[in-house]
């Protein structure tokens, strides 16, 4: 005992915490190992080379990337407003716009239908004047994914903006830089790591989106049938194919996590 430095805290884990902690680890990892054990490894290449599977994967990659781009375009300015504005009601606004974080995605899908469907409160006018209706189109998939995933970006970027060094922004302003130029040249580079982390998180959430997409966009190969929907439908007829595709999404998730871990560590030490 005396050998230990007095600055080091006791790191032994008391058993009332250790036992549930081990159970928690098992609980989280057993299903994943089940997936790995049940994966038909020998047939894997041919299951993944299935044109329908590739089509779903391609659609998922495209729509998740588009949803992330849309989230960046709309979400970063929103995050800036939430972090910098002193107007009353901002915290209420924040609560509303981050609601999709906790809202069940299928409810989001129903809400999107009520708003932007052909008979929706806004959608009916779009349909009336342009003859275009969103449901069953690839745009509906992108909108559903953006609705569910954008709050992840907003929350991440807002946090970074709040903890960013305001002194640099003020210095830029005193040197004659306008507010937007300051945002572009000073603020954005400052929050760069969080912007990347938020984008990756948003992309991953969009890639996994199921409920809102199935409800709002439907399911048709090549147009609206994304990977999660394809997995769900394949599970009913060919479980092996569904397991193989689940594995692909698992690998993607692990990769995302690995990427984020680096970013978070870096940004953590920098801020």
């Amino acid at each position, binding site marked *: 005992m005396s050998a230990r430095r007095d600055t080091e805290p006791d790191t032994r884990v008391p058993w009332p915490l250790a036992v549930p902690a081990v159970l928690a680890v098992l609980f989280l990892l057993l299903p994943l190992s089940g997936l790995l054990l049940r994966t038909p490894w020998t047939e894997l290449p041919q299951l993944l080379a299935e044109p329908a599977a590739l089509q779903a994967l391609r659609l998922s990659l495209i729509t998740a990337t588009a949803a992330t781009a849309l989230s960046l375009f709309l979400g970063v300015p929103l995050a800036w407003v939430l972090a910098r504005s002193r107007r009353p009601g901002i915290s209420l606004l924040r609560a509303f716009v981050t609601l999709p974080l906790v809202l069940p995605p299928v409810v989001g899908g129903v809400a999107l*239908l009520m708003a932007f*469907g*052909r*008979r929706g409160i806004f959608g009916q006018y779009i349909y009336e004047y342009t003859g275009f*209706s969103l*449901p*069953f189109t690839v745009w509906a998939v992108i909108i559903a994914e953006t609705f569910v995933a954008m709050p992840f970006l907003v929350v991440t970027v807002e946090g970074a903006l709040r903890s960013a060094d305001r002194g640099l922004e003020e210095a830029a302003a005193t040197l004659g830089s306008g507010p937007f130029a300051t945002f572009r040249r000073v603020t954005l580079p400052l929050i760069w790591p969080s912007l990347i982390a938020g984008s990756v998180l948003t992309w991953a959430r969009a890639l996994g989106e199921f409920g809102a997409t*199935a409800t709002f*966009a*439907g*399911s*048709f*190969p090549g*147009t*609206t*049938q994304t990977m999660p929907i394809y997995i*769900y*439908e394949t*599970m*009913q*007829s060919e*479980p092996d194919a569904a397991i193989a595709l689940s594995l692909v999404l698992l690998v993607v998730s692990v990769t995302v996590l690995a990427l984020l871990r680096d970013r978070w560590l870096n940004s953590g030490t920098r801020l």
Partner: protein
Amino acid sequence: MRKIALIAASALALAACGGGSADDPEAGSGDSLSGEITVFAAASLTESFGNLGKAFEAENPGTTVTLSFGPSSGLAEQINSGAPADVFASASTKNMDQVVESGSAADPVTFANNTMEIAVPADNPAKITSLEDLAKKDVKVVLCAEDVPCGVSAREVFKNAGIDVTPVSNEVDVKSTLSKITLGEADAGLVYVTDVKSAGEEVSGVEIPADVNASTAYPIATLEESKNADLAKAFVDYVLSDAGAAELETAGFAKP
């Protein structure tokens, strides 16, 4: 809601009438039945089995029938993966056969038949009057997914009629297909005649000529893994009884 209550009430009345008849086997053994069962039933049975479940519970106090509805293909897969169910009512013999082949059920009995109908929103925005209208390019048609019984039947109808229809969406089951029409998002869809009936005023039906229409048989069976085999058997008998047949007929099903 009032309509459902009325149907339930009439089912109860019918059940009471049929109580004493010879082919109502569980009528005399009501006192020995207790506990609960879970019934996995095709989505198209949502209303009729909902009513049958309530009527069965009312006739056998102390019993609880929990109903789980979904696409027959998905339910069959769940049963074969060990889902704790006592009775399976499928919208196709194919999905029942999958369960029988895996040893999860034996000796299914067909209790009803169903045929397809075109469902359109009440105001029929695309002016659908025949099957051929569905092949038009700007008509938004929704179908059940290809592996789901209603999706199999829908494609059979198109094949019989020799028309080529590209849907805008393949929905997970017949009820989600129907909801896209009730909401007016799609112009038309192929669902069962019973679904058009259950949707009430929100949708109207366009009949499919009998010579090209497809029908599907509904088999029911108790499951081997059932922890309450007596109650499961009693429920199946009830579905097959006169009272059950009357309820199914009210819903628009054809006799097997």
